[in-house]
């Protein structure tokens, strides 16, 4: 009983993760400029990764594998904003203008 509940929730979590990754890749294709695409890339790195790792953790039960999977999750959560920020920062520094429609203050 408990086993089948864990199994089904693991499958649901994996499918949800795949869905988020798919939406993120569509976003990377569809959105107009680098700064918007970073948001879609961030979706892959946060929701997609988190749900797939959650699904695999449920699949493996309490073991060393779960600890390593959680460690991968923490590592990707920690490094994803750094690469996103550094890419955006470099694009801004090299003078790329994002497509916006506001006249707000910028640095």
């Amino acid at each position: 009983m408990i086993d089948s509940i864990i199994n089904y929730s693991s499958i649901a979590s994996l499918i949800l993760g795949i869905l988020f990754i798919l939406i993120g890749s569509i976003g990377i294709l569809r959105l107009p400029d680098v700064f918007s695409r970073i948001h879609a890339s961030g979706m892959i790195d946060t929701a997609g990764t988190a749900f797939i790792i959650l699904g695999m953790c449920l699949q493996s039960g309490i073991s060393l594998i779960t600890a390593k999977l959680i460690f991968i999750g923490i590592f990707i959560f920690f490094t994803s904003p750094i690469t996103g920020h550094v890419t955006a920062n470099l694009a801004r520094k090299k003078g790329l203008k994002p497509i916006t429609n506001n006249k707000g203050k910028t640095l």
Partner: protein
Amino acid sequence: MMFLAILFSISVCFLLILIRLIAGKTTYDRILAANSIGTIVVLAISIHGFYMGRPEFIDISIVYALINFIGTVAVLKLFDKGKLGDK
């Protein structure tokens, strides 16, 4: 069987991002796409470990995540300064 289906769907996402990597207008688009492909490959390696029934191979995906991060930083620095040395 389930893991095979998931690997297949991950490869579809991989191909979608690959289109952006080839078509991307600016360099930053390409770097971003390469970074996203790296994240997807990290997940695919660990799922492949489950599919083969040897989840010990998760160590490899940690190494891949590490090299993905350091490689992205190195490429960005190369575009910023033209060399990897001084800060």
